[in-house]
């Protein structure tokens, strides 16, 4: 006991002596700082501006903040960060390297597209003369109650969604860049909490929306608890939460306190901790068996939010997963790879098979996102540089296809709002060939048909996995792709070869916001399919972690 105490004292003494003044690299952290700053500004706008002005200001603010942040990312990248140099920021708790910058760029772009979808006010019919968007007039009001009606009539709008989203984006930017487990945990919570709220704010079908929020929240915090406990165990094992230091401890380069060897520093701590951290992250990427929230939340959340979640959350979570496995646990490859194999196989197979019988477009896309998580996991498991680059590229292509697909979902409407039941999509290709063709394009990209971004991504990931020795995964991936193709094609058949239902949904004409979102989706899908070299290079150059 006394030995422990003296150790503690010595350690403490050493620490106090060398505590430096916190040094913050504002320039290098600017992408996150800009987003957080804009979010705070958004809060102020909510507080001080009159209701009528808020919508315009918030949209402009959010877009400009995100674009400014993206510009900062570009400047940093142009400055050589991510390709030729990298750095540890904020006293080593944030990494500035290729994957971080690349994923931050993707997240910001996805966020821009999402905000465009948020800002759409032309799709919903005007309620009592007031233009309305996808969000409820007043989140606190009881669905269908008097208060809601009044709020709607008064032209209230939940413009809080913009700062909320910006906070979430800020957390997401931090998540893949987090270089220690604490930062990672905080980032996880920072982007999760706003998302829980955003899920509950749908204008239509508010019961579903609230249910989605509560499910997401409860399961999300449950998963966070696992993550945190995993953090604790790893801290117990290594005495540090810095990822590179954990790696050094594992590989024996930097032995931890020898006196603890018997009591704490044993592999059980390490392995259980690793597994629990993985649970937290796999929950976010929607891997089986931690996927069960995905369909319900995707279905219930307002569609723009679903799109944002599906795209940006996945990117951020995979970024963190990559960093965890590549920076902290490369030495444990032989322990986690078999387990991750199992998870990846399950994810691909279950996602694909469950999607086969879905009847709701949003749920279908949710299961599809699960299957895609499985494909991306095969790239993660490759544990080589190619795999890293492939995953980065896949995330880029996937996020735009997803956003585009959800943007199209917002367009197909009947009197009750979005018509998400598949049966009402019958014959869409005959009424609105262009919209159906665009959606078909996204579906084909999901299915991985050549000349779409989905194919290039899938090829890159599978190729890396095969090179990394995971051939069976590639074969399972290929077979589940075939099953997945089945349900994508089913939707296409429904749209083009079925007769339209009388009184079926109509396609609303979107404003420039959603139009831009969809156009961007198409552009990126085709562009990354036909001429992917530039972005492959970018991903490949970016695929080097710091630390």
């Amino acid at each position, binding site marked *: 006991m006394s030995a422990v105490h003296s150790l503690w004292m010595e350690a403490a003494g050493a620490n106090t002596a060398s505590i430096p003044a916190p040094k913050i690299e504002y320039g290098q952290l600017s992408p996150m700082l800009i987003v957080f700053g804009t979010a705070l500004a958004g809060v102020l706008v909510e507080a001080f501006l009159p209701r009528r002005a808020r919508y315009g200001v918030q949209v402009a603010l959010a877009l400009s903040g995100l674009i400014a942040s993206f510009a900062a990312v570009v400047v940093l990248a142009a400055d050589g960060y991510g390709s030729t140099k990298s750095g540890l920021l904020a006293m080593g708790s944030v990494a500035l390297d290729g994957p971080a910058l690349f994923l931050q760029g993707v997240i910001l772009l996805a966020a821009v597209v999402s905000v465009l979808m948020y800002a759409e006010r032309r799709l919903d019919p005007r309620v009592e003369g007031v233009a309305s968007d996808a969000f409820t007039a007043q989140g606190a009001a009881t669905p269908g109650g008097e208060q809601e009606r009044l709020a709607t009539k008064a032209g209230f709008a939940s413009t809080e969604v913009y700062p909320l989203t910006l906070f979430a984006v800020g957390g997401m930017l931090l998540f893949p860049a987090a270089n220690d487990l604490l930062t990672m945990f905080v980032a996880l919570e920072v982007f999760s909490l706003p998302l829980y709220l955003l899920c509950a704010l749908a204008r239509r079908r508010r019961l579903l929306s609230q249910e989605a929020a509560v499910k997401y929240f409860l399961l999300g915090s449950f998963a966070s608890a696992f993550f945190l406990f995993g953090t604790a165990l790893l801290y117990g094992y290594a005495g540090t939460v810095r990822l590179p230091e954990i790696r050094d401890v594992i590989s024996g380069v930097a032995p931890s306190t020898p006196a603890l060897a018997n009591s704490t520093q044993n592999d059980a701590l390490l392995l259980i901790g690793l597994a629990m951290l993985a649970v937290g992250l796999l929950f976010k990427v929607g891997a089986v068996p931690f996927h069960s929230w995905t369909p319900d939340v995707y279905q219930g959340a307002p569609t723009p939010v679903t799109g944002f979640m599906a795209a940006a959350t996945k990117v951020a979570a995979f970024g963190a997963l990559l960093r965890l496995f590549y920076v902290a646990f490369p030495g444990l490859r032989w322990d986690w790879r078999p387990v991750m194999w199992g998870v990846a196989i399950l994810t691909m197979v279950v996602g694909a098979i469950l999607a086969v019988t879905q009847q709701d477009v949003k749920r279908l896309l949710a299961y599809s996102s699960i299957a895609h998580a499985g494909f991306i996991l095969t790239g993660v498991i490759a544990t080589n540089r190619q795999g890293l680059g492939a995953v980065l590229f896949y995330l880029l292509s996937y996020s735009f296809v997803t956003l585009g697909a959800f943007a199209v979902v917002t367009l197909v409407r009947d009197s009750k709002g979005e018509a998400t039941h598949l049966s009402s999509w019958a014959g869409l290709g005959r009424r609105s060939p262009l919209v159906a063709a665009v959606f078909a394009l996204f579906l*084909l990209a999901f299915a991985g048909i050549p000349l779409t971004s989905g194919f290039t991504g899938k090829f890159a990931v599978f190729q890396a996995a095969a090179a990394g020795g995971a051939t069976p995964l*590639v074969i399972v991936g290929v077979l589940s792709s*075939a099953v997945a193709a089945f349900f994508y094609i089913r939707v296409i058949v429904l749209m083009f*070869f079925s007769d339209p239902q009388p009184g079926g949904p109509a396609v609303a004409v979107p404003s420039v916001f959603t139009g831009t979102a969809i156009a961007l989706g198409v552009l990126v899908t085709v562009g990354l399919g036909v001429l992917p*070299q530039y972005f492959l290079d970018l991903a490949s150059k970016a695929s080097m972690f710091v630390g």
Partner: protein
Amino acid sequence: MSYLLTATCVVPAAGAILTAALPAGSTEARRRTTKLTALAVSAATLALAAVAAARFEPGGARYQLTESYSWIRSFGINFSLGVDGIGAVLVLLTAVLVPIVMLASWHDADPAPAPEGTFENRRRTQGFFALILAVEAMVIVSFLATDVFLFYVFFEAMLIPMYFLIGGFGDKAGGPEAARQRSYAAVKFLLYNLLGGLVMLAAVIGLYVIAQQQGQATFDLQSLTSAIADGKLVIDPTAERALFLGFFFAFAVKAPLWPLHTWLPNAMGESTAGTAVLITAVVDKVGTFAMLRFCLGLFPDASKFFAPAILVLSVIGIIYGALLAVGQKDIKRLIAYASISHFGFIIMGIFAMTSQGQSGATLYMVNHGISTAAWLLVAGFLISRRGSRLIADYGGVQKVAPVLAGTFLIGGLATLSLPGLAPFVSEFLVLVGTFSRYPVLGIIATFGIVLAALYALVLYQRTMTGPVKDGVRGMADLKVREIAVVAPLVALTVFLGVYPKPLTDLVNPAVNDTLSQVHRTDPAPAHPVAEPAGGEQK
């Protein structure tokens, strides 16, 4: 570097976009503009293909008129085109058939009885012809690609326009049930081929990874084959066999080889005659073509290892397809099963690995394309007149529409490989080529020609002869446009039956090269004739 081959691919592709973008509308004039545009584009493609074939020198390098542009550097993928003798004849086949198919399908994409203002009425024609051109472009790229990945991409991508052609434009007759059958057929087509393609994708990746590990990170076909030949790239036998099977599976689905054929009767049965021709005469040929070029070139040892098994499957396919054709009640399904039988011959010729077999198989691809197109298109004209695909609904057509019946008979005779018509030459070469190495299989396959006669003549007898049936009475004979469709096909069938030398001259060097890739020489005759009358040609 000439841009001829790129132009041959780009012209139909651009034409497809142009056709799709033509102003919508269902007026006769608008539709005619669309059709004429598409026809002009396909004619231009034919001209380019003809120039390319004419500039090909049979004695020269295996691949000529080569072009290469970097496409996806990260994976060593180039947009490389090159034409060899086999590719040249198949590109020509495609370029010849597409305008004919368009002409034959002139009214197939006219507005269907659909609600006013729907897609059918506004963009149906544009869509149909644009899709045909898109298929043409993709098929031509597949035939010209000298990069494995490039080939793969277009091999897969062509499924999409084909899918829409099958599912979107069926026979005019039939109500919801027909539409259901049609979309079933389209989905089946797509899923089968997609599965094949995905398995191939795994193999493509595997090949690349193995090549990469040995410092040959490229998809360039010639580099790969020469590296394999020189021993710079050594694939261990198990891996080679697995990769071979991955490639072969995709090609066997597309070709289609028994027992992976079941999508074909549905697809051909439910689509328009023109689409069915595209499927069986053009798109499916990519499968057999690819066996010859990729399976044999990249995996010579595995090809030899699996050849006996594949030959057995192909012989089963020959007999099985023919027997099923005999048992069909539906004209187009009958032709589809006949095609399955014919694909058995083609695959048999390829894997017999003799000059005769492979030259024969290549010629077979062309000849089957032409003759089946003739047969099928006339069948399509017939069906469009009566509105039924059932054989039992016809009888005595010969009496009311003799030209139609006559051309139908010629198509049937070509299908049963009547000597003097083109398919005979190729079928006999395939049989001889197989027989000289695998006599028993050769003999069994030979009995396929009896069954071919059976189904072809039974079909003719049931539909064209006998007393005139009620629904047939007053049926119009072929119109000028329809004769213009059939005449070139018949003329080609006869010409290539009498004088196939222009094609064999193109094909022979490429076949020699392929055989040397797999290290196979023809079995020598037991008692060679001292002084052959014809003179050996080397």
